[in-house]
């Protein structure tokens, strides 16, 4: 039994709920109208509570590559944001040991009018790196992203593949202890995909911890040493990637076809 300090991530009875109102945008006028109609009371307000994650507990030891599978709306991205400390838990507790680097579904907060070089600097600074650290990382990142001359061009001129490559290069080269990757592995062409999976294996070899969310079950089977399956916010099953993808596919009532194994 590993001791407490061997856990990179420990999630205990985690629940995340958020309230969404029917109005798409909260506006002052809307609030005033509600006051006017006397709708301040809890009963009448049109609030729907979304239970994105329900009572989930699991541990991840250092050096594990954990894959998370599940249908759309299973709460995978919400869970990832909670692990990164972006979304606060409603109940339960998350303990994370080590420096976290994120590569989440929305990409980095890059500004399209700035060059790749400036965006790398901003991304690293937001992640808490010092200027001298960034200077030393800079070559690693540009070399990894293979952008060539585009590095000094505004990012609005980038193709989506180049954009994804840069985002991936920034997050893996931060020397994270824990890397959170949400659906970003489809960035780039076949060659870059191979390179990124090699980089991830290298990180694992250094006992870094990686959590991957992917619909590409092939990626999960190939990269991960451990996997969990989430459905409608609940953790259904945890096991080896082979077992988990098999049960997930049984649930979906489709066999292992070329489509489910490929990056879609």
């Amino acid at each position, binding site marked *: 039994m590993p001791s407490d300090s061997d856990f990179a991530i420990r999630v205990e009875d985690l629940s995340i709920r958020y309230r969404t109102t029917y109005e798409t945008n909260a506006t002052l006028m809307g609030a005033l109208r509600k006051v006017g109609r006397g709708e301040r009371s809890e009963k009448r307000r049109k609030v729907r509570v979304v239970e994105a994650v329900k009572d989930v507990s699991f541990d991840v030891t250092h050096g594990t590559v954990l894959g998370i599978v599940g249908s759309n709306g299973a709460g995978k991205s919400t869970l990832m944001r909670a692990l990164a400390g972006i979304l606060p838990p409603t109940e339960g507790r998350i303990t994370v040991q080590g420096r976290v680097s994120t590569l989440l579904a929305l990409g*980095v907060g890059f500004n399209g009018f700035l060059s790749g070089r400036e965006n790398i600097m901003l991304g690293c600074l937001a992640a808490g790196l010092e200027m001298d650290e960034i200077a030393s990382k800079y070559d690693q990142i540009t070399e990894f992203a293979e952008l060539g001359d585009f590095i000094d061009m505004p990012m609005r001129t980038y193709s989506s593949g180049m954009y994804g490559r840069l985002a991936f290069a920034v997050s893996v080269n931060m020397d994270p202890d824990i890397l959170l990757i949400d659906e970003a592995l489809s960035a780039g062409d076949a060659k870059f995909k191979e390179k990124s999976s090699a980089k991830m294996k290298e990180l694992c070899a250094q006992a870094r911890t990686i959590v991957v969310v992917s619909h590409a079950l092939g990626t999960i089977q190939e990269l991960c040493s451990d996997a969990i399956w989430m459905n409608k916010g609940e953790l259904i099953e945890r096991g080896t990637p082979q077992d988990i993808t098999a049960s997930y596919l049984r649930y979906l009532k489709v066999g292992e076809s070329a489509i489910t194994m490929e990056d879609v």
Partner: protein
Amino acid sequence: MTLPSAASRELYGTVQVFEPHRASLPPMGPYLRELWRRRRFAYELSRTTQKAANSDAKLGSLWLVLNPLLLAAVYYLLIEVISQRSGGLPAFLHIVIGLFTWYFIAGCVSVGASSVTAGGKLILNQSFPRALLPLSSVISAWLRFLPTVPVYLFLYGLGLLLVSASSGPNGLVRPTWALLWYPVVMCILAVSGFGLAMIFATLMVYFRDTNKFLSYMMRIWLYLTPVLFTAEALKLKFDHIIVFGMHLGNVMIYCNPLGPAFGAMGNIWDKGIPPSPAMLIAAVFWAVVTLIGGAYIFISRERDFAVRL
């Protein structure tokens, strides 16, 4: 499984625990340390954002100076010509430095208000002290304010050459050591600006129409603050009205979070004397109140922002 290396083992010391919270403050020690550690991010964000914003305007940053100058001309016409008061060049210069300074505060408020909602992507993807975003707006406002200072000094110098005699009520005051108080007043205003930016950024997350009201609110605030006219003019106009045993003019200046600072500014530039202690104390008081109030409102709710965006 490979064991963690000694170096990375050391890093594992950085343990973070995420737990549920109500609208309350996170541990302030680590928060402020982290905020200070990432101050460079706030600076680079404002520098690069400004660069990006100017990338396709032909006159670019020239507008930072042109805008308040043209506005000063408009207000000068409005106040001096239409109301048939002849303040001459000194009055024009008062309006110019008043508006340059006011533009700094208005910049803090308006850019700060949308700093969180505009930084949505960044907030959803990275975990960092969110107060960095309004702080970056204050830095932006500061970077935009700085080039207007030499422009004013040029106009002031020109004025000194043209209006030779500095006697009489309409005379232009020669530069004195009191001018050194101006940077102090600007620092006090920057603190207020940071507080106000945090307040309006939080409001904006909950009510998206805040920025629609904001431009009108700032305009009314401008008229209630001794920017276009002097604190003395305001007192002269309203001091005969007594509310709760106090002169209305004084109430208008001292109950306005920006009033004392702009009053102090008037002393410095118009009369060439240091700000009165009362105004200085009131200005510092308001700066501290807006900073602490704004920080409390913002930081106690910032963990809720990711859900609201």
